[in-house]
């Protein structure tokens, strides 16, 4: 039995927990406002808000209901457009109407929900965040300019919002109906836990599994690990950072400690999927999916991260770079699950960068991505970890390239020499994301870009990229 609240209605259901929320909403509850566009989290037409009770407050995030199993809704508040509709249009709906932000209308509800989610979020209600809230929504009609203008109006109107009283303020201003303030109490009486039997498939956010195995997941024997509290959290112990396997990309992005360690973290993670997907996608999910192009995998490879695997209580540790054995092949027993990801807190003279290039800069899978971490001792590289994705059968840790540069000065000559080794370490193939030759060039460019980003004083851009001065 799964128990949650959908809009203002308490739900208890014995439907298969692997069924996606989108189908539950549309076909079981007959709420047709939520649309089906792609069923792979790439269009946002099915965006809903998912509220989770934490410390007496409900925190709402946007998610794509096409990839969300109802098993992950246990004890939560799910909001579809029907749950925010009132007699009059709310200010978000009004702004979209006023600016002509809806044409064919099929994507519109997704935008409405993303923007209402923005209004409900504790993030600063500035224009940049309003646009970011729509980064998972595709509109084929408007060209987005009218939606940008609508977002501008909404931001204006949110100026009076009391950050400590968001829900009551939004209710008072008729953004949302007034049942929302009772939701924390109602959620409090629903258990958050699910039964603990050992199941065959572990599902975190579902953002990969539900894309790849959409048809079979509904009847799969699923262990839902997304809300498993033992797998959540980001903490520091001594000199090591531990991340729960089910930490989402958004958990990392909004974590203060991580932002201190990685000053450009938000910039880096903005390149990864979209707001709703970042709200769902887990770290371990990205690792075990073993995509050669997994963004977070490349990121953590460059941190030389380790994994703690748990096989029904038997634990072992393995370096992430040793986890990959071949295309979609892992050093992992079927029953083993990733429990924790850890990496050492870098020293003072430590530098990190992440690069990603795709056909479309945002909400796209990379043609190539690349990450690097370098610790300097004086002007020399004391230690270095680098990885690049999309250019090998699995996420490629650049062992030899790193070894080559370790102990060397940061100089254009050394870096260029290293790129020759990098080219030997990779073996890209031509596919929909680019020709092999392009990926070779791109891997090299991104590797060079790290040094320009991190050490602009130490390398001359024109020499590094061998730009002829006219």
């Amino acid at each position, binding site marked *: 039995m799964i128990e949650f609240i959908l809009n203002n209605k308490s739900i208890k259901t014995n439907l298969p927990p692997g069924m996606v929320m989108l189908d539950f909403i549309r076909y079981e509850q007959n709420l047709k406002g939520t649309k089906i*566009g792609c069923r792979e989290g790439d269009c946002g037409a099915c965006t809903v808000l998912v509220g989770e009770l934490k410390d007496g407050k409900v925190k709402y995030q946007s998610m794509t209901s096409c990839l969300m199993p109802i098993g992950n809704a246990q004890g939560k508040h799910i909001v579809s457009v029907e749950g925010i509709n009132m007699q009059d249009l709310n200010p978000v709906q009004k702004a979209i109407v006023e600016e002509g932000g809806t044409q064919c209308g099929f994507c519109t509800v997704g935008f409405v929900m993303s923007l209402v989610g923005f209004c409900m979020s504790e993030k600063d209600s500035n224009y940049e965040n309003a646009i970011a809230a729509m980064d998972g929504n595709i509109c084929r009609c408007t060209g987005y300019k009218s939606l940008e203008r609508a977002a501008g109006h909404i931001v204006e109107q949110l100026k009076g919002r009391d950050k400590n009283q968001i829900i009551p303020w939004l209710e008072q201003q008729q953004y949302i109906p007034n049942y929302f303030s009772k939701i924390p109490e109602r959620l409090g009486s629903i258990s958050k836990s699910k039964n603990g039997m050992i199941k065959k498939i572990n599902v975190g956010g579902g953002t990969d599994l539900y894309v790849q195995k959409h048809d079979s997941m509904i009847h799969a024997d699923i262990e839902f690990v997304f809300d498993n509290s033992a797998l959540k959290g980001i903490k520091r112990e001594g000199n090591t950072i531990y991340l729960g396997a089910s930490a989402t990309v958004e958990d990392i992005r909004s974590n203060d400690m991580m932002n201190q360690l990685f000053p450009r973290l938000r910039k880096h993670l903005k390149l990864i999927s979209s707001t709703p997907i970042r709200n769902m996608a887990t770290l371990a999910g990205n690792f075990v999916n073993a995509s050669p192009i997994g963004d977070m995998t490349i990121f953590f490879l460059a941190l030389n991260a380790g994994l703690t695997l748990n096989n029904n209580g038997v634990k072992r540790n393995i370096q992430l770079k040793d986890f990959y054995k071949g295309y979609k092949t892992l050093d992992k027993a079927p029953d083993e699950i990733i429990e924790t990801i850890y990496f050492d807190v870098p020293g003072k003279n430590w530098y990190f960068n992440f690069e990603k290039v795709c056909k479309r800069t945002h909400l796209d899978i990379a043609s190539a991505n690349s990450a690097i971490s370098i610790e300097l001792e004086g002007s020399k590289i004391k230690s270095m970890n680098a990885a690049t994705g999309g250019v090998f059968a699995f996420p490629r840790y650049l062992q030899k390239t790193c070894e080559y540069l370790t102990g060397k000065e940061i100089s254009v000559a050394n870096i260029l020499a290293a790129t020759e080794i990098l080219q030997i370490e990779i073996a890209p193939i031509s596919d929909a994301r680019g020709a092999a030759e392009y990926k070779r060039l791109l891997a090299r460019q991104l590797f060079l870009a790290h040094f320009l980003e991190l050490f602009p004083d130490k390398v001359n851009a024109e020499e590094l990229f061998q730009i002829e001065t006219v």
Partner: protein
Amino acid sequence: MKNIDSRTHTRGESVYVDDMPVIAGTLYAVAFDSVVAHAKIKSLDLTEAEAVTGVERIFTYKDITGENQIGGIIPDEQLLAESVVDFWGMPIALVVAESEEIARVAAKKIKVEFEKLPVIVDPREAAKQNKLIMPPRTFQNGDTSAQWAKCEHIIEGIAESGGQEHLYIETQGAYAVPLENGNIKIYSSTQGPTAVQRTTARVLGLPMHKIEVDVTRLGGGFGGKEDQATTWAIMAALATHHLKRPVKCILDRMADMRMTGKRHPYSSDFKLGLSKDLKILAFEATFYQNAGAAADLSPAVLERTLFHANNTYNIPDAKVTAYSCKTNLPPNTAFRGFGGPQGMFVIEAAIVKAAEELGIEPTVIQEKNLLKDGDMFHYGQITAGCMAKNCWTRADELYNIKKTREEVDAFNAKNKLYKKGFAIMPICFGISFTKTLMNQARALVHVYTDGSVGVSTGAVEMGQGVNTKMLQVAATIFSISVNRVKVETTNTTRVSNTSPTAASATADLNGKATQLACEAILGRLKKRAAIELKANENDITIKDEVVYVKGNKTELTWPKLVTACFINRESLAEHAHYATPEIHFDTTKERGHPFAYHVYGTSLYTVTIDCIRGTYDIDSVRVVHDYGKSMNAAIDRGQIEGGIVQGIGWMTMEELIYNSEGRLMSNALSTYKVPDIYSVPKEILIHPLETEVDSLAIFNSKAVGEPPIMYGIGAYFALRNAVKAFNPSANIPLNAPMTPEKVLMGLYEKSVAFKSEALPV
């Protein structure tokens, strides 16, 4: 006024096909399609699939009671493959079951044996093998062969543009419902209700009147549902016909992308001759259109390529030829612009190549050759009301072409790792279906006894706001509140024999028909008012729901007048017919006057590329657009903004990739990328050029659906311009889209920085 659907759109209350209440007993249909692009079907075994619990029946071509033929222009396309499949994704069988899930499971259990045949994906290869959809066509004006000797510069080359997935967010779908006496009602997400009706009747072997097609609205069409919505409507109807049960057939995204046709990819040869003072003396082009496996709308698309081969330039001596090449891709189809963009891309490519070779700005050649009134198009139509120069000049006044160029150059002089590019894309697009007979429409207007009004037309609402415009026409002619008017669904039993909602002409054609219907009713109302008020009919006017005599307000209001008409047994309804006057075209001579009018515009692009990563931003698109006199500025602005972004998508990130086996590799939203909110131009400025010369546009409000997509071509040339700023010697093929891949390869082409031959393979 705002789009009349916008309230329900934002509330999720607008109804699309899959949102309709499901009738008890509804079955679900899933097509089983080919996994090879060209093969003989050696055997088809349905046994295991039929045994799946919940499967009602599996249909093949043998179950077709009429003709297994869905080709609209040329009868060359089977609904369900008989002995041969000729594209990857061609439907072979239709699984009908109690749920979509069951149908899917069963479809996977169908066993088919193929004997593979050679696959062609390249249009030039098809042409070489003489695999053509129809004989090539040539439009010709003057004598190019006599001109080459006079040319100071002759530039030749190849230009290629890729296909484009429509990516309407609502996938294809239909819901067929059995009525009494074997009649069928189809709710279809189609731009062409009559096409659905006609073709369903043909396939089922029924007269057209037994098929009723009803369309509320589409979640996007863009041409993709002009002809290709028909297949899925027939699939549902075929099952309904046999099973006498309601049947729903909605495609999932990957099936839609795999099985339906897209914008045609083109590969073209061009030859451009310029005089010493850069006048275009001669232009020749040969277009190889990748039609896919069947004609679909390709012949008409190809025709429009020929019409727009000159874009907005005066070319007295031109000869353009087009081949519609039969390949093993899904049959390509209409897409906003309908072959026009592909034609314009080639002439622009020729001009840019000429400018690069001559070391001048393309804008110099562009500006010198703009059309003016009295010039003759290469198909014989004389230019009238030409706004090419007006748009260009106004754009220069507003946006300062020279200064923009200088700013780009100044930026480039200062920056090594980022480069800006600049381009101007002027457009000229002809309005009317190029097939003259299609330029007709009908409207049915009812005035009810309470004064409320219902309007039915052949127009299909797909986001472009046509229903809002129809409502405006009725409210304006009657001079009543918009709240009194309702636009009905598009239904073949109310308005018959319709042309599809296409060619940007729908608001004009249906608007004029609505206008005629309203005027006829208004005439009767005025006559009645004259009697009631004992006044002269010519002195009667109606303004804001009140009758005036010689400009003096009376007590007679709209509802009272309507009632008076009814009591006196006078008709409050009218079914009016409109056919565009003046137009004609003789395909034996390839000459005539095919367009009611042309729409013009000029757009300025600036872009910035990251010369390390090959990524880019479109900084600004600044436009002067020939609106005529917009009857709904908000809707028209939305059409232009949306068209620009869709055009930019086609020219930049939207890359359709088929492998040599004819399999679509960019087959999902994860691999086929359309613009998102971050990739759109930072600035889009649209300045309306208001003119009042075109009486054939409804209320002089010029058609706005397709023309803006061609502005997108400017993005390609601005990016190319930026790459050249970094790597002036780069030899970049004129091949769209300009993906980040092509940008990066262009930036480092022939550069010492990257020697690919030196790398280990």
